[in-house]
C-alpha cells in the first residue's frame, strides 16, 4: 500500500487503481446534469447562444427536471415488476400459448410510435400525469418483457436439468438458478426501458404532464433553438446517467452470474 517500489504485486494494484473505478463516469454525468439544470445559463454562454425568452416557462428548470425524473421513475417502477412477472409466466407456461401471445403483442407494440401511444392514452386517462404515466409504463414494459423471456430461456439447460434432478421445486429452480443467471440480460432490458422512457417522457409535456419536454415544445413554437436545448440537454444527460449507472449494475450482475470475484481482495 505505502510502498510500491519494486514490488510487482503493489505495482499491479497501482495500475489497477489508475483505471477509473466504475462509479466515476456515472458520478461525473450526474454532476454535469445537476449543474445543467441549476445553471443552464453557463452552458448557454459556453455555446454562445441565449434563449430569447419569449415563451420561457416561469417554472425553474430544476423543477421541470424533477417532474421528468418523477415520470420516468414512476413509470419504470410500475413497468419493471409487471413485465418481469409476465416474462416469468410466459416462460413457465410456454405450452399454454401465453409466451407466443406476449412475444407477438410485444413485438407489435414496439413498432408503434411512442408519440402515438401517448396520444392514444389521453382518451383513456384524461390529461396530465396519468396518461403519460400509463403510456410510459406500457411502453417501458416491452424491453423488460422481451429480455426477461430471452434471459430465462438463455439459462444453460444443464443447470436447470441438474437443479430439477437434485430435487429443487419449480419455484426454487426459478429463484435459486434461473433468475440469478438471467439477471444480467433482464437488467439490460431495464436499462433500455429506462433510457427509452427518459426520452419519451419529453412528449409528456404535450399531454400536460410537465417535465423537460416543456421548454422543447415552447422552443418549437417560438422557433427558439436555444430554448429547445434547455430541455433537450438535461434530458439527454439524464438518459446518459441512467444508462451508465444501470450498466454498472448489469456488470455486477454479470460477474455474479459467471461467478467472477468482484475485485475485492484477491
Amino acid at each position, binding site marked *: 500500500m505505502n510502498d510500491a517500489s519494486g514490488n510487482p504485486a503493489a505495482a499491479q494494484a497501482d495500475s489497477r487503481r489508475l483505471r477509473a473505478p466504475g462509479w466515476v463516469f456515472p458520478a461525473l454525468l450526474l454532476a454535469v446534469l445537476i449543474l445543467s439544470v441549476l445553471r443552464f445559463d453557463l452552458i448557454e454562454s459556453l455555446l454562445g447562444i441565449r434563449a430569447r425568452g419569449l415563451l420561457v416557462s416561469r417554472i425553474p428548470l430544476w423543477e421541470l427536471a424533477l417532474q421528468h425524473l418523477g415520470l420516468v421513475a414512476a413509470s419504470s417502477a410500475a413497468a419493471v415488476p409487471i413485465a418481469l412477472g409476465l416474462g416469468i409466466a410466459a416462460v413457465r407456461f410456454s405450452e399454454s400459448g401465453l409466451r407466443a401471445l406476449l412475444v407477438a403483442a410485444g413485438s407489435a407494440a414496439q413498432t408503434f410510435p411512442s408519440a402515438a401511444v401517448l396520444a392514444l392514452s389521453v382518451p383513456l386517462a384524461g390529461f396530465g400525469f396519468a396518461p403519460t404515466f400509463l403510456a410510459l409504463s406500457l411502453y417501458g414494459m416491452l424491453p423488460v418483457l422481451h429480455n426477461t423471456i430471452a434471459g430465462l430461456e438463455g439459462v*444453460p*439447460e*444443464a*443447470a*436447470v*436439468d*441438474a*437443479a*430439477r*434432478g*437434485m*430435487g*429443487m*421445486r419449480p419455484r*426454487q429452480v426459478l429463484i*435459486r*438458478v434461473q433468475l*440469478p*443467471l438471467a439477471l444480467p440480460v433482464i437488467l439490460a432490458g431495464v436499462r433500455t426501458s429506462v433510457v427509452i422512457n427518459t426520452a419519451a417522457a419529453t412528449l409528456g409535456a404535450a399531454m400536460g404532464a410537465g417535465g423537460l419536454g416543456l421548454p422543447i415544445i415552447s422552443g418549437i413554437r417560438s422557433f427558439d433553438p436555444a430554448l429547445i436545448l434547455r430541455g433537450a440537454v438535461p434530458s439527454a444527460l439524464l438518459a446518459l446517467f441512467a444508462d451508465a449507472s444501470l450498466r454498472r449494475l448489469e456488470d455486477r450482475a454479470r460477474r*455474479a*452470474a*459467471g*461467478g*467472477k*470475484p468482484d475485485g475485492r481482495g484477491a
Partner: protein
Amino acid sequence: MIRFRNIVKSYGSARAVDGADLEIAPGELCVLIGPSGCGKSTLLRTANRMVEPDSGEVFVDGRPVREHPPEELRRGIGYVIQSVGLFPHMTVGDNVAVVPRLLGIDKGEIAGRVDRMLELVGLSPEWSSRWPRELSGGEAQRVGVARALAADPPILLMDEPFGSVDPLTRVRLQREFLAIQRRLHKTVLFVTHDVEEAIRLADRIAVMRSGRILRHATPEEFVATDAEDFVGEFLGLEYGVEILSRRRVREVLRPAAEIGSDPGAPSIRAEASLKEALGLMAARRVECLSVTDGEGRRAGSLRMEDVLGTWKACP
C-alpha cells in the same frame, strides 16, 4: 433396489422406451449401454421421475416411484449428467451443498460434509471457494460427482458422466469412481455408449436397443455372445480382448521362485491389467513378461497362456 417393469414412453409417434424390464440389486453398478437414441437416458430418467412413463412402473426399494412426490424422491437419488450442470453463480462448495441444504441439514454439518466430499473425489477442501468457470472438464465432473454424493443417497443415476472429457481424464475418473464405489457400495445405474467404459465399471451390463433391454448379464458372461446377433455386433469382436482389462497381472502371475529368470523379457507392473500385458506382448512380439511389484522388485513372470488361458487347437 431399482426395478423397471415394462416401461413404455413415447414422444409423439416415436417410442423411446418400448417395454423395458431391468432390475438392479442393492450395491450393484449396472451399466446400461446401447447406441444413440436407444432410449437408455429416457429409461434412466424414469427412475427419478424426470420422465414419467406412459405405462409400466419403476420401483425403488420395492415402492413405486410415483407414490413419492418427485422432489423428495430426487433428493434421495444422486444425479450426475454429461454436461455436469454446475451452477455457474455458486462456488464449488455451494454447488456441493445444494442437496444437503434442500434437506435442511444444519450448517456446521454441511461445511464438514462438503470438505469430505471434495476429498472423496480427489480435490482438497480449498477447492470449495473456487468458481465453476475456473475448473477444467475433469475437475468439473469430479465436483458433479461430489455434489451427487453429498446427501449420501443410496442410489446414483449417472447419465454418460464421463462422456465429455478427454480419454486420459476419462480413464482416471473411471478408476477413481470405481474406488469410491468399492467403498460406498451405492446402487448405481450408469448410462454410456462406450463399451470399454462398461467393461471397466460394470458389475452387470444391460444392452439396450430400440427401447428394449436385449440382455442383462455380467461382463464375463457376455464373452460367449454370438457375434452375429445385435449384442455381439454392438460389443464388437474386440470384446474378448477388452474384457482382459478387468483382471490384474498379479492375479495370474507365476511367482519368481517357481521359474528361472528370463533375462531380456520386457517388464510390467503387477497392478497392470491383462489387456495392457497382452498389448505389451503384441508390441514387443514376446510370449513372456517379467513382472515387477510396486517398488520395482521382480515379482514373477507372466506368459501369454497365463493371459489367454488354454486354447482350442485349430482343426
